[in-house]
């Protein structure tokens, strides 16, 4: 992974891939804790299943490619992919969904494209999207936040969660309640189908928003947790501020521009878009991926901003309630194109725009060719 992206003088920083990946793992902890607190043990079990799958797939395919296995396992990049998939999937999703998504991410999205540093698409998001279009029912069954549940309902504990995830017989009958008692459409989904209520009425009536403060019970704290982790990574200079700030600003701007003051067809206030779904996870852990994003600072601003715009467009006018994964994959396509036009000018060379207009014309004075003598 090329971390040096500027011209000389280079200042050497002791930043290895392993260090970056470990810091990323560390920074997911606040968001993970919020997930566990509000939605039960599911996410932790997801992460464990995904990690085992990812390490096994990575080891198998690195062996098949005749590369040093320990060298690649040690850099923790497979582990980061696994943790991101585990965090993005609904808790209590069946175990085989996690296994299929992680295996797809590591084998097809990462290694078939050349492995670490060569993948054009973010592996975790590819895995997520494959699952989303393949298993729509499992992938949209999110548990309700514990604070929303009626008091007589006990949310599934650790052992019950394991039973649900590994689908032991009779697992759908827990303490007399079916699994449906614990699930609810996500806040974004509920908001999308708000059945003609004004935003204010909807916020009072819907269980998510009645139990929450800004963007649905639980979800807002999960997003704030990822925001905290992201700020830690910024402080540690793991990535630059450009892409996440551009993405969040663009999303906020789009929400402001399209906010009609809370009518029944409103697309939602900015606070809803910033603090629900995968917004913060995407902004700090996905968009900042050095391999699949644009490389220059200007490029990252454009890349991040367009992701923010796409997220809003798909959320507001698309079929899917959340859009971070689709937006990121679409912009991964565009990253090389953005790079082509935003690479910093090397000292002594023309700008790319001047080069592309006049490079083939030999009479162009800018090229300073020696005059022909014949």
């Amino acid at each position, binding site marked *: 992974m090329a971390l040096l992206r500027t011209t000389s003088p280079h200042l050497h920083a002791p930043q290895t891939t392993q260090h970056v990946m470990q810091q990323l793992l560390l920074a997911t902890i606040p968001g993970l804790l919020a997930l566990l607190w509000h939605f039960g043990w599911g996410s932790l079990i997801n992460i464990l299943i995904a990690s085992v799958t990812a390490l096994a797939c990575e080891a198998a395919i690195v062996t098949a490619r005749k590369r040093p296995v320990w060298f690649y396992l040690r850099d923790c990049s497979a582990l980061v992919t696994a943790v991101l998939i585990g965090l993005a999937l609904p808790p209590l999703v069946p175990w085989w969904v996690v296994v*299929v998504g992680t295996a797809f991410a590591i084998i*097809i999205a990462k290694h078939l494209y050349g492995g670490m540093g060569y993948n054009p698409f973010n592996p975790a998001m590819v895995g997520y999207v*494959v699952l989303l*279009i*393949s*298993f*729509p029912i499992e992938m949209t069954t999110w548990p309700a936040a514990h604070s929303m549940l009626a008091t007589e309902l006990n949310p599934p504990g650790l052992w019950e969660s394991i039973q649900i995830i590994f689908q032991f017989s009779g697992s759908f009958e827990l303490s007399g309640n079916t699994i449906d008692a614990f699930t609810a459409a996500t806040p974004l989904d509920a908001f999308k189908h708000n059945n003609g209520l004004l935003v204010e009425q909807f916020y009072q009536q819907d269980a998510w928003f009645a139990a929450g403060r800004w963007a649905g019970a639980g979800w807002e704290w999960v997003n704030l947790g990822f925001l905290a982790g992201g700020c830690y990574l910024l402080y540690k200079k793991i990535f630059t501020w450009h892409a996440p700030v551009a993405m969040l600003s663009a999303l906020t701007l789009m929400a402001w521009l399209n906010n009609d003051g809370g009518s029944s067809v409103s697309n939602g206030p900015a606070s809803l878009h910033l603090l629900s779904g995968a917004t913060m996870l995407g902004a700090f852990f996905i968009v900042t991926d050095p391999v699949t994003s644009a490389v220059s600072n200007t490029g990252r601003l454009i890349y991040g901003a367009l992701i923010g715009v796409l997220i809003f467009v798909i959320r507001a006018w698309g079929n899917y309630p959340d859009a971070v994964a689709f937006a990121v994959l679409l912009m991964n396509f565009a990253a090389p194109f953005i790079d082509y036009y935003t690479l910093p000018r090397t000292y002594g060379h023309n700008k790319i725009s001047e080069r592309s207009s006049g490079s083939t014309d030999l009479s162009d004075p800018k090229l300073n060719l020696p005059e022909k003598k014949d």
Partner: protein
Amino acid sequence: MTEISQVSYREISRNGLWDNNPALVQLLGLCPLLAVSGSVVNALGLGLATLAVLVGSNAAVSLIRHQVSDAVRIPAFVMIIATFTTCTEMLMKAYTYELYQILGIFIPLIVTNCTILGRAEAFASKNAIIPAIADGLLMGVGFGAVLLVLGAIREVLGSGTLFANMDLLFGPFAANWSLQIFGSGYSFLVAILPPGAFIITGLLIALKNTLDARAKLRKDALKAKPLKGAKRVRTTGVIH
């Protein structure tokens, strides 16, 4: 137009089925290949229809190759291909109406399949009728075989069955050919959707390239015997 006098049928078959396979090497006709290969019955239906058009058009183009001038050959070829496509479409409408409805626009679109125009231009317009028919047949079989393999893989992965609904093509006695590979509730939608088609086609092409590379390695290993009495040492290249 030059006439190729010596035609090796061995070479025609090798080209059509493997070395110059329209789906895996020339990558022609990918649109129907990817769009309708969601199940074996769809793949086989389109494969047979393409085969019929390819054989017919190759024969007809070969017959008129001395009468049509170079300037108007492409419109003439397209007219011939369109005629055969329309005939095939009508036959399918008459005998396999349900399959015709499932395949929909991709039956008329056979006329734009580059494989067919490509073979008319590259082979049939320069060869006698019998080799042209052989070329059409083998290219069609090569295309259909890939379509069939792709359809089988996608059907097993995507819906967990194999040979489902074969009665659409072979009549009622094929109604119980369907094999249930995985459980009845199984589905893995991405294999049925277009991304799955692209991924599996890519893997098939990779498999073919790997097999070719292995075969070449084995051939080279047999060939590369040290020469007796070689005068000088070479560190690069091959000694001939």
